[in-house]
């Protein structure tokens, strides 16, 4: 075996922590394993009662701020979703790019209805900024019962 053959020879037993063939580089499964995943359902009291639209805008603004905190060059390398359920109906926000959140209101959403409490479901997954303290951010943004 000549020098080149020795350099190129990669029998299985040669792989190890220092191996440079790429066998130590993270694969898809490793990246997924390390993902930041936060999934919460929060009961949010509102005192005094406020119109549903105002609550929605405030809540989704806070969710958008959290999305921005984990984004890379304006893109969430994952997905941030939230759903508000309250007597006024359902409203959802989906964020993959910070500059273009997608907000959907259920048909019949009553924006003017006074709301005393709502349920906020949040699902956040990110393959970047995985150490971001998202749970603490949510707790600060939505003090709950």
């Amino acid at each position: 075996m000549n020098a080149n053959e020795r350099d190129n020879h990669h029998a299985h037993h040669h792989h190890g922590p220092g191996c440079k063939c790429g066998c130590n580089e993270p694969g898809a499964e490793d990246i997924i394993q390390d993902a930041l995943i936060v999934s919460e359902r929060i009961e949010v009291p509102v005192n005094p009662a406020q119109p549903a639209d105002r609550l929605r805008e405030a809540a989704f603004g806070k969710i958008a701020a959290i999305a921005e905190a984990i984004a890379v060059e304006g893109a969430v390398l994952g997905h941030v979703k939230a759903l508000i359920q309250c007597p006024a109906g359902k409203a959802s926000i989906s964020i993959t790019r910070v500059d273009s959140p997608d907000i959907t209101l259920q048909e019949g959403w009553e924006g003017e209805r006074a709301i005393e409490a709502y349920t906020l479901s949040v699902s956040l997954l990110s393959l970047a900024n995985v150490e971001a303290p998202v749970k603490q951010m949510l707790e600060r943004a939505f003090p709950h019962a």
Partner: protein
Amino acid sequence: MDILIIGGFLGSGKTTLVKSLIRGLVDDGKTCAIIENEIGEVGIDDAIIEEAGLQVTPLFGGCVCCQISGNLISAIDKIEEEVGPDWVIVEMTGLALMDSIRDTFERYGKADARIHTLSIADLSRWKHLVGALSMVFDRQVEGADVIWLNKTDIAAPTEDTYRVLQEKAPDAIIAELDEASKQPDALWMLLMRNLEERKRGC
């Protein structure tokens, strides 16, 4: 019974497209059952689908290819026995790897099952999909029969987009979505055409 597995990175638009597809499917006189696989314990996607008046069987707890492959195939078997729809549509989590899903079905599913795989590519984050996320993205398109390019209103596909996808999935049929093609009937017909093209290409 045909099984359509829809994958694609997180936030690529799968749920919105599923809603439109099932309306088109029903307009075409077919029946379907939907399985939503969502990471985490709070069901947001199924709440959105249920709003459309459909029953959803949620599968929580992780990526189906990692942890609950058995449950998915059992769920499909149960649906076939109890409901017998024309189509079962499985919306995978945005972290599912299409090549692993295909393997799971080939190994553990029924031999006569007709499986079709559709991957949604989000062009608005193309740079990241082929960059930082390429390890995941590559495996989400490699096993796909059809690849739909979504969010083309934010970022249009280029020749390079097609070149890259054709390298990763040389047998896949690639189609661009726009507002017109995302309407229920048009979307369902597009899927039927693309699957037929794929079948002819085998």
